[in-house]
């Protein structure tokens, strides 16, 4: 099964808006990309359109939150994480306003549209803001479990989701979810692959290939980039021979950097990171781009074999 996470998000917000009048969704001419056209019609009194103005989107959301509302600001991750970064820093995180920033069409989802539309720096940018949590859910089930927690809490967060349908990581919804704890997709003792977002499915497939070759691979779904599940990382560092990180993000300030920083201090272990390049990416659909940079199951398996 596969499902676009934005659909999961839209269905979730529709359900929550029916139950809670404080839920407000805001878009920056992005209701179509966010799959929120139906929401905007069904909940017109809980929807605010701000036009193509991401700074205003986040500032207005902060004002709504300051007055007790529970805003979800939904805008392409590329713009939300850079154009309105200062509003996220000042009006949301610094002022401690409970805004959930939903970065849609994240990473290289917009494939051939080029670097303007890619968000390959959002762990680094948004994660550097004090008080702002960062989540990259991997599939429909994890997204729903995560959103159930986030809709109830009172702290701001940035959530990046992709545009395309993603294969289920958790077949039949078998997911043992605990907030801010990495999910063990597979357990194993030879090597740990830590991935986030859409990369988790590819990591799982890579692990299956390696298992067919007789290797025992642990796969962690690190949807919680901030706060990072340090315990799970250090456990992997102690129990397996190395860590391979995989992320749809640039080489700097992302998952690999955080894992390397943590392990270097507490339990030095070989860490290799698969990332997007420090450059505009090649033109293509997401899958093409993942393949080109070795971020698909074959590329991940190849990198893992080199480490083993």
């Amino acid at each position, binding site marked *: 099964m596969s499902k676009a996470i934005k659909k999961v998000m839209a269905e979730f917000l529709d359900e929550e808006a029916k139950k809670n009048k404080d839920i407000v969704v805001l878009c920056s001419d992005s209701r179509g990309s966010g799959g929120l056209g139906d929401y905007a019609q069904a909940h017109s009194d809980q929807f605010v359109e701000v036009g193509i103005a991401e*700074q205003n989107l986040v*500032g*207005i959301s*902060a*004002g*709504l939150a*300051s007055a*007790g509302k529970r805003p979800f600001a939904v805008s392409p991750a590329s713009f939300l994480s850079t154009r309105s970064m200062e509003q996220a820093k000042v*009006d949301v995180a610094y002022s401690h306003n409970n805004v959930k920033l939903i970065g849609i069409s994240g990473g290289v989802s917009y494939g051939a549209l080029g670097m303007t539309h890619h968000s390959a720096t959002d762990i680094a940018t948004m994660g550097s803001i004090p008080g702002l949590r960062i989540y990259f859910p991997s599939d429909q089930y994890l997204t729903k479990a995560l959103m159930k927690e986030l809709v109830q809490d009172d702290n701001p967060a940035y959530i990046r989701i992709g545009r395309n349908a993603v294969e289920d990581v958790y077949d039949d919804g078998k997911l043992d979810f605990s907030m801010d704890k990495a999910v063990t997709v597979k357990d194993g003792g030879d090597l740990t692959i830590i991935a986030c977002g859409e990369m988790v499915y590819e990591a799982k497939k890579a692990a299956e290939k390696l298992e067919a070759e007789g290797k025992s691979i642990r796969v962690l779904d690190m949807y919680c980039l901030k706060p990072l599940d340090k315990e799970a990382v250090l456990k992997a560092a102690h129990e397996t021979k190395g860590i391979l990180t995989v992320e749809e993000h640039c080489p700097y300030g992302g998952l690999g950097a955080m894992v390397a920083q943590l392990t270097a201090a507490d339990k030095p272990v070989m860490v290799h990171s698969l990332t997007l390049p420090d450059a505009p990416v090649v033109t293509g659909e997401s899958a093409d781009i993942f393949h080109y940079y070795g971020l698909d199951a074959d590329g991940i398996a190849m990198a893992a074999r080199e480490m083993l």
Partner: protein
Amino acid sequence: MDLQAKAIDIRKDIVTMIQRAGTGHIGGDLSVTDILVDLYYKQMNISPEQLDDPDRDRFVLSKGHCVEALYAILADKGFFPKDELVTYAKYQSKFIGHPNNKIPGIEVNSGSLGHGLSVGVGMALAARMEKRPYRTYVVMGDGECDEGSVWEAAMAGYQYKLDNLTAFVDRNRLQISGTTEQVMAQDSAEERWAAFGWNVISISGNDMQAIDDAVDLAKHTKGKPTVIIANTTKGKGVSFIENQVAWHHKVPTAAQAEAAIAELNERKAVL
């Protein structure tokens, strides 16, 4: 209450605070003082007893660098003990050089210009959604209107017909590098805001009665937000600071502070 006398007392507190701390934005503090005094002592439904009242009026000092004026007023109104202000800008003080919402009476943090009007739009939208009677007031600087985000918020205020939102532009015509017209022209501010669909009221911005009348007029204006272009004098009340670009954030010496307070006392005596 004699608001003009109160404004002079607040100006004295500002001068003292900045001289003691060795930092602050004295020019803009003194230009915006009358606006803040009218709002806090006459117009707004805000008090230390109402910090969590969902119907309290909302205030955002978008020109956050003029926080000394706000601190002086909040202290005087009892939001916190006045003697806490001696820590202003000192090591580990919560009284930093821009609004900090860890301080009672401050709704949101500001300091980076061009943020407050968007936040105010959100607060005003929330009032409408919840059918609450409170009004939202946002005070901006004229130099601040260089920021494009101000105009994003202006569009939204018009789009949503936020007649529960009143903005001020402290039009003192100076910013850190020179006159506003030299740095990035703002004339005609009135025509610009009118073109964005706002109800525009242009007043003499250090005239307490004019400020008060404009706020009343805004309350009775339906279907659109109001901006009050307050034509003020930067450094108002202290003759050697008035209209001097250099006094944007210059710190008075002890002797200058003494002279400033003496002049303010003289002004108060002839009210």
